[in-house]
């Protein structure tokens, strides 16, 4: 009896379409949602807050605010997507392909501002700081003058 | 929709532990697990049981504080399946448990460092200790 069931299964497998694929000659399309690796969309949108570095469970992102640099190790990354979900400017995206085969698994992907952009950013920051300092100085001076004027007026009144 | 099962935690002293578990066995409670936590200066054991008629799956947990160097009686007389957890607790945390029905004496879990989860125990109990406990 069992031979009929087994025979049925065998004949069906012999004459139906093969369920396997002739890889590597035929490669299946990766699904759109597949999780492979992370990349940054545009470095100019990044505010270097460091949330992605804090949330990564595999320690594969390093954010350097002073140097305006974002470094990523694709071979340490486990493609969980925590950084993509937590970025406040939505500047990270999940790509669907795994990183390419290589012999050096400490390679990094670095995004940083160019030298002119960094210099420009530093200059703007310096200008802002100078302006803020000047405004604080002016305010202090005005307050000191006002106090002196009040004391003079009070001294006159007391002297009277 | 019910979200979680109710939990009932009870603090139990080390000397009445065996009687409490024997009482639960009498009432046909089912055994779930034994777990240990390393605290600042002692260890804490958690024994978990489920009542036989718990429709909502209420879990009963007995919390026992074990000072360093104290010995804990085994409950394998009442629940034979507990030997796995008691051997594991001894091998990973260095807590001395006596009277286990299948006592592997430190050879159950193959780890490269003695008592990896509890660094204090590794200092207090140097190698080749705890082989034959003299509590009967």
């Amino acid at each position, binding site marked *: *009896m*069992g031979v009929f*069931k*087994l025979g049925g*299964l*065998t004949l069906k*497998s012999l004459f139906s379409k093969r*369920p396997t694929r002739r890889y590597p000659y035929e490669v299946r399309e990766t*699904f759109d*949602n*597949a*999780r492979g690796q992370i990349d940054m969309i545009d470095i100019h949108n990044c505010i270097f807050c460091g949330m992605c570095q804090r*949330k*990564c*469970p*595999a320690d594969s992102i390093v954010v350097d605010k002073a140097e305006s640099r974002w470094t990523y190790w694709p071979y340490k990354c*486990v*493609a*969980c*997507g*925590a950084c993509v*979900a937590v970025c406040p400017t939505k500047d990270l995206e*999940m790509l669907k392909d795994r990183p390419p085969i290589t012999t050096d698994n400490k390679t990094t992907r670095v995004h940083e501002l160019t030298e002119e952009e960094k210099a420009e950013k530093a200059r703007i920051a310096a200008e802002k700081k100078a302006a803020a300092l000047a405004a604080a100085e002016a305010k202090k001076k005005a307050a000191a003058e006002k106090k002196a004027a009040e004391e003079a007026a009070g001294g006159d009144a007391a002297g009277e | *929709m*019910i*979200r*979680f*099962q109710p*939990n009932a*935690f009870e603090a139990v002293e080390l000397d009445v532990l065996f009687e409490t578990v024997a009482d639960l066995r009498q009432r046909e409670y*089912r*055994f*779930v*697990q034994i*777990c240990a*936590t390393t605290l600042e200066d002692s260890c804490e054991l*958690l024994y*978990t049981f489920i009542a036989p008629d718990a*429709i*909502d*799956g209420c*879990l009963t*947990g007995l919390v026992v504080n074990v000072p360093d160097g104290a010995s804990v009686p085994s409950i394998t007389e009442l*629940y*034979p*399946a*507990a*030997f*796995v*957890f008691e051997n*594991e607790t001894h091998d990973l945390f260095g807590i001395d448990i006596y009277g286990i029905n299948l006592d*592997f004496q430190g*050879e*159950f*879990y*193959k*780890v490269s460092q003695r008592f*990896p*989860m509890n660094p204090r125990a590794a200092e207090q109990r140097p190698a080749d200790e705890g082989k034959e406990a003299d509590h009967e």
Partner: protein
Amino acid sequence: MSKRTVVPFGPQHPVLPEPVHLDLVLEDETVVNAIPRIGYVHRGLEKLVEKRDYTQFVYVTERICGICSFGHSLGYSECVEKLMGIEITDRAAYLRVIFHELSRMHSHLLWLGLLADGFGFEALFMHAWRLRETVLDIFEEVTGGRVIFSACDVGGFRQEVSNETLAGIVAKLERLRDEYRTIAKTLLEDSSVKSRMVGVGHISTDKALELSMVGPFARASNVATDERLNGIGAYGDLAAFEPVLSDGGDCYARCDVRVREVLQSIDIISELVDKIPDGEVMVPVKGNPEDGAQAMTTLEQPRGQAFYYSKGNGTKNLARMRVRTPTSQNIAGMVAALSNVELADVPMVILTIDPCISCTER
């Protein structure tokens, strides 16, 4: 007085999916005693909780085991949500249960393939794993991963799954049901399979209760223990749920229970997809667990009852996270099932217990 020999079984053996060592004490050809030793896959994941905070640790719990991966992230999330008093949305609870039942199906299909391979019936192994590919493709289309899908998180479910996608999933599973039934029947009604499995490794109901066994291993000995009966989460909204029981107590009964559980999972998924409510899937999570708070939850994983315990200490790292998996509870039952069994039947008995040693050792 016959001579006793000790034969080491494992850690490397063709029928074992994961390494475990057993010293089999034999008298002639009968196993008298089996002494287990574990620790070959110990990664110290419970100690890693000191280094990774509670939102990062969910990705570590997923990687405890490849077969029960979603179950561990689900149990961890539920435990931390209970610790911090977070309530998730209904839609997230339904999605979690649907994916957990899909995970159960994938685990049982994998087990069926391994069992057939242990017999030497490789064609059935290939058929069962071909059906498993349908389930893995469903996972990859929806969440992006085949085995480890990073979908469950503290606060809900990370992916938005539309109702059309869910209807598509149910249609695929209905097509799978008939093929699966043919394949399972071919294995279970074969006379040579029956002669190797009926009456082997018998455990009576009383012994199963005494040894605190869990999961399909215990349900095959007529012990009605199933955590889904508690009705926690979306399981409470099912119209009727009965655990699949069998009173054989031997290897054949265990196979029968697992085969029927796959069909029960397909029914549960269809029912829940009909009833799923609309809404958000993630709830924002802020703050840290309180100092001294503790929480315990249980979950029915494919292999039995899994237990999760967490303890907070006021910082963003948990003080303790404990996972107790069903296989460690069943080791005593495994040792009992292996007594009075011939040496040639040992692989069969171990495969029908379905051990997952990487869960046991974390």
